[in-house]
């Protein structure tokens, strides 16, 4: 067997074995490093972050189906989604957006590309079902 095919097969087996272990462990969420983001005074988010005196707001996306906002370790609001409810939200958002644009411009506004919608659905479903990550953004208000 040519060397190329051997390397490819071995790599494939390693990937499959690793994913098998990950799957057998119950597909735990893989935490990614928190992304810090400084918000300057004057930005719309600044007043929201500073409203309770904590000067910090953490937005956490858990691709297994949860989006949570916390302030000083206190949960503020959480959204639990599935690929279906996410798609329903996109659908509603798009319809409202088109309706708003139609009202403002009095013209027919075209719908978004079906391929783009499918692509978004696949990405959401992939990170929901196959590999799960936790991504956090820490918003800090600058004085």
């Amino acid at each position, binding site marked *: 067997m040519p060397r190329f095919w051997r390397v490819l*097969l071995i790599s494939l087996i390693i990937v499959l074995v690793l994913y098998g272990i990950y*799957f057998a462990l119950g597909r735990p969420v893989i935490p990614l490093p928190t992304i810090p983001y400084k918000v300057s005074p004057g930005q719309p988010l600044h007043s929201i972050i500073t*409203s*309770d005196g904590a000067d910090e707001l953490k937005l956490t996306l858990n691709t297994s189906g949860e989006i949570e906002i916390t302030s000083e370790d206190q949960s*503020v609001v959480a*959204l639990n989604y*599935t690929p279906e409810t996410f798609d*329903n939200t996109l659908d*509603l958002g798009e319809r409202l957006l088109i*309706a708003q644009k139609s009202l403002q411009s009095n013209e027919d506004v075209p719908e978004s590309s079906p391929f783009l919608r499918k692509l978004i659905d696949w990405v959401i479903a992939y990170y929901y079902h196959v590999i799960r990550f936790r991504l956090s953004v820490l918003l800090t208000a600058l004085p």
Partner: protein
Amino acid sequence: MNKTPTFIKLLLAVILVLGMLMVQQPPMATAEIAKQEIPANLVHIDVTYDPGTKSYSIGGFSAEDLRQVGAPQFQDEIWQVLSMLDGVTLKIQGDVIDIFTNDQPLFSVAWDGASREILYSLLNAYIELGDVDMERAEAWLDKADIVISLRQSKELSEPLQISLATLLQVQVKDNGELSVEGFPTGMSLTPETLDLVNLAGIENLKLCWNKGVIDLQVNGQALPQATLYQGGLSVVDKAFGLSLGDLTPIFGSSFGAGLVIGEADPVTGECLP
């Protein structure tokens, strides 16, 4: 011996094992859910009042909270009557209405289907808002468990206990007028909002609140479930300047509403988890 077949065998074995692992379904809850009785609409409201300061508290909301939302002040005659009582409790449970004063039973009234029909006829004869929809009224009252207690006390009243299985039916008419259970509210949607809703093809909404958990369906399609934490509510309140006051009482309650735009069919179903 050639190593190629070994690789292929190994690959096939791994794929087979992983395939079996992935196909393995979590144990499904196949046990039949025990058929429950039709859930009751439970409403327990505690009211405390102090004739000395002429203030009252309802369902865990303080006099100050109530003043902020425009709760009315009682006339002196009413305070005089209230000052003579230590407490009055009205209980609607099953087919009986019981009234207690100062913890002593005052009287009981039959509250079965026939007696309710008489009440609906009286209401139809004397109210000007329109005929009572008997089917809807029965949906609310047939399995109701209602306790309203008035106590003379300076203490804050007990938090509300509301658990409504029946959906509150809200309708937006073609001209934007809003009615609740068939009764006009005097409120209406702005023409811009109505146009937006109609253009977006929104025909109905179902909203359920269950102790901080919000479920919303638009045209029968579920949106992500939102959980509003009681501790975090102050952050939302301050961030958006909502002046919500103390909303602790509603975090123990569950209720829901079905909103219909135009002449679409009423939203069906319940909200209880």
